[in-house]
């Protein structure tokens, strides 16, 4: 920040408009790391479990997904995964998409998709957990 000369005629307000509040970035950074930390044990547990159940039939899947400990862990896994993935893809879009309009549409689409997929997955788990 050594160079404080303004190169444009735009007002300070116009220059920051649309960039969000100053602390949003820190929150994004923390959420990305916390979800990553949570995903280490959750992912290892999930991969080992489904590997051990490879080729399971419907009855076995329903019994596994619907058991109390597993359904709670699955809801945690799904929440952390879609949260983390949305935050990550957002950064990638912000890095590569330079048109403001395309960027906004892409960011909204990714957020909507992440919420939709997360809720659909959680709904499926809870339905089996409550014996739907």
């Amino acid at each position, binding site marked *: 920040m*050594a*160079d404080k000369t303004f190169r444009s005629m735009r007002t300070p307000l116009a220059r920051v408009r649309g960039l969000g509040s100053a602390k949003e970035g820190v929150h994004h950074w923390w959420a990305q*790391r916390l979800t*990553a*930390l949570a*995903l*280490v044990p959750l*992912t*290892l547990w999930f*991969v*080992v479990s*489904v*590997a*051990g*159940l*490879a*080729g*399971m*039939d*419907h009855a076995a*899947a*329903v019994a596994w*997904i619907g058991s109390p400990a597993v359904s709670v862990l*699955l809801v945690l896994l*799904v929440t952390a*995964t*879609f949260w983390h*993935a949305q935050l*990550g*893809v957002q950064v*990638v879009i912000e890095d590569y998409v330079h048109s403001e309009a395309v960027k906004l549409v892409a960011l909204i689409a990714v957020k909507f998709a992440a919420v939709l*997929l997360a809720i*659909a*997955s959680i*709904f*499926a*788990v809870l*339905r*089996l957990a409550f014996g*739907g």
Partner: protein
Amino acid sequence: MSAERRPLSPHLQIYKPQLTSVLSISHRVTGVGLAAGTLLLTWWLLAAASGPEAFATAQGFLGSWFGYLILFGFSYALMYHLCNGVRHLFWDAGRGFELPTVYKSGWAVVIGSAALTVIAWAIALASA
């Protein structure tokens, strides 16, 4: 620094790939690939909740050669991203920045992710 005198980023076409740069871009590529792959997880859970027929369709696809191919790619990408993600978390905590350590942890990621993938598939193939 004036905008005109800022250093240019490396020119990828003439820049020799190094372990560090390859692992770095792989983290991003696997992250985006995994994000797309979450569709499979949601499909599989919804199929199980929908009933035996829908679940048989999902399992039939995942058990085909094409399904195996996707699952193998997904599992390897996941194990890679997980190992390198742990490496990132150490960096975020301010550790492991010495150049020899960066290379050591890099090779640990290469070997660790391959080993975890082999272990997962050994379990899966023994259970299937």
